[in-house]
């Protein structure tokens, strides 16, 4: 069920109030962007996906009946757009400055550790990229976005059992392809 605030904005947006839709955009764009960034691995693509997601949502706003959370509906559109974009960009160019990788913090307590962690996250991002579409998307939604399985099932249009299996399989494969050193660097300080 969409939140009360969302419902009010939605109702107004359905009636043609663009400012109301703008408010919804500002409320949800960061979450959608974070998901888009994880799915595309490119800052530029993520911005495009966010734009396209909200545009499609606006065009189809009358279809949203408000029974589900608005963000799950937006996530579903975002996943569709991101998948399409990735399929179109068949030639994957390694992003030297992967926007998913945290920048090493200058002046931190331990710059070496910070750089090591950044490197570990780069490896983790690569490992995620090596997963299949379904496993990667499910894993991002489950672990990075921390959605409950029920919501993931709603976003992906599958059963919770399928989500559980994909998460399990993704974990297993990630563990297989991530080196012990990387794991050590990823451990909580």
């Amino acid at each position, binding site marked *: 069920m969409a939140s009360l605030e969302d419902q009010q904005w939605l109702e107004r947006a359905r009636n043609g109030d*663009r400012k109301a839709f703008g408010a919804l955009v*500002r409320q949800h764009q960061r979450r959608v962007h974070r998901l888009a960034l994880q799915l595309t691995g490119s800052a530029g693509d993520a911005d495009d996906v966010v734009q396209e997601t909200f*545009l499609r949502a606006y065009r189809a706003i009358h279809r949203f009946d408000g029974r589900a959370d608005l963000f799950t509906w937006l996530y579903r559109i975002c996943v569709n757009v991101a998948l399409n974009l990735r399929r179109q960009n068949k030639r994957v160019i390694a992003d030297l400055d992967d926007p998913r990788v945290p920048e090493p913090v200058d002046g931190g307590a331990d710059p070496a550790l910070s750089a090591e962690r950044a490197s570990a996250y780069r490896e983790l991002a690569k490992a995620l990229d090596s997963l299949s579409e379904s496993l990667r998307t499910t894993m991002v939604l489950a672990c990075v976005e921390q959605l409950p399985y029920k919501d993931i099932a709603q976003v992906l249009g599958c059963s919770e*059992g399928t989500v559980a299996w994909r998460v399990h399989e993704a974990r297993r494969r990630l563990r297989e392809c991530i080196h012990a050193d990387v794991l050590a660097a990823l451990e909580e300080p």
Partner: protein
Amino acid sequence: MDDPLKLKIAASLDLPTDAAADPDVARAIDADPEARAYARSLHTLDAALRRWPERPRAESSWEALAARLDARVAETPTGAKVKKKKGVSREEADPAEAPVFQDDLHPPTESNQAMSETQDQDADLEGLAALTRTSNVPPSMSVPTVRPTLTDEVDDTSSGIVDIKKLAAMARSAESMAPAAVKEEAKPAEPEKKAEAKKAAAKTDDVMVTPSRAAAAVPKVDHVPTKGGNTWLGMFGGLALAAGAFALYTNTARQSPEQAAAPMAEAPAANSAPSDPAPVAAPTPAQPPPPAAPMAVAVPASADPTGAAPAATPEPAAPREIPAAAPAPAAEAERAAADTVVARRAESAAVPHAAARGAVSAAAPQRAPAPTTAAVARPAAAQPEAAPPAARPVPPTAPARPVAATPPPPSGGGAHSVDDMMNRITGGGGAAAPAAAAAPSAELPERPTRSQMTAVLSGLNGPIRTCANGQTGTAPVAIVIGNDGAVRSANVSGQFSGTPIGECIAGVVRRAHFPAFRAQQVNITYPYVILPPRN
């Protein structure tokens, strides 16, 4: 560290932080350094993903992004005003349709979703459902009546799956082995048969071959196989053909043995004891034949409303328990052969068990286990009613078929019968059964195939849903199967662990029976996903 434990460790990551840890996992982590390392690595990975740091982005950048969007929205009409263009993409039509993944990996537990959700389009379910159907190969087919029906989908009127390549080869060899007179009669159907064999060769392993049931018993009747889905027509056709077979047989039985010799050669499947038509007329295989006459009983499959087709087994006067206590070995072997059809799905294994995965690849050449595990051989699709097969396993006390006393097959069926050929191909049933019974351990597979295990376990869906009593969730069951096929232990973990529902589920699984195998035991974990019933 075994796979079930790995699965439990992974599942424990999804528990709420305040939830009690699985005692098995806690114990294993305490005792086993490998398990501890595994749990730690998974936990580290999970935690790293959960606290994935974001690069900071200026507020102005977010505002700029939103402003750009505002500008585009201003140029865009809302959905109600959008004009439908020709060739508009599906996604444009409904951007919030469920994503379709190119790699769509169907989890093995997908079969369990069938507990409450019918997924007609699910190829996996089709495959699994097909595997749980009993063999449709007639118990004793005469050579010229090999008339396989090629379908791209599972035929509901049929219950059997035969490897297409093997059947095509069988058809060819049948042609060469048929007696001259029989060949004469079969001639009109020759081009059609060749065309079918050709078609069969062209098809891939995905093709299911469903030989017609009753055509085997009535060689001269031109059986028109029905296409998949035409269930009623197929059933009526089968009944009509069975009646024809019976009529033919009774006519033959009244003739003198000399007169009867020729027709019997044409229709050896009907019966090898022409003086006693009772077995053929028996409406259900559960009725024992008159104890006086040793005979090769060939009950037409179409006469059995349950669709269970017992293998033609020459038996002495001993009471028959074919359908209830003993599986058709040929059916078992065919199912093993049918594993090749779904072997390509081994990657998305139903049981995340490396050993089981390996077993699947070796499934085709396996000889069917000795027919003492009746529960496994009573698959779901063979029962039109809702109760799944393994949900009512035959108690271990059920007497096995007295194979040791089985006499050699009558010359009527002869070494040239398709049944024999099927047995040779699939490595089980018929004349091979006594040999298999004589040296069971040598002939048993190293471990049951994944599809065999899945067939048994998915057959428990009904009772397990009853156990759940309306509750939903996932119930991973760690099962230890002994080499006699009996379940040695079954423990439910996850949300139902330690609950009455979990106990009920474990109890149901403990009563399951798998095919016997050679290895000491097999450990698997099978997650039952219990979903709410579809409205």
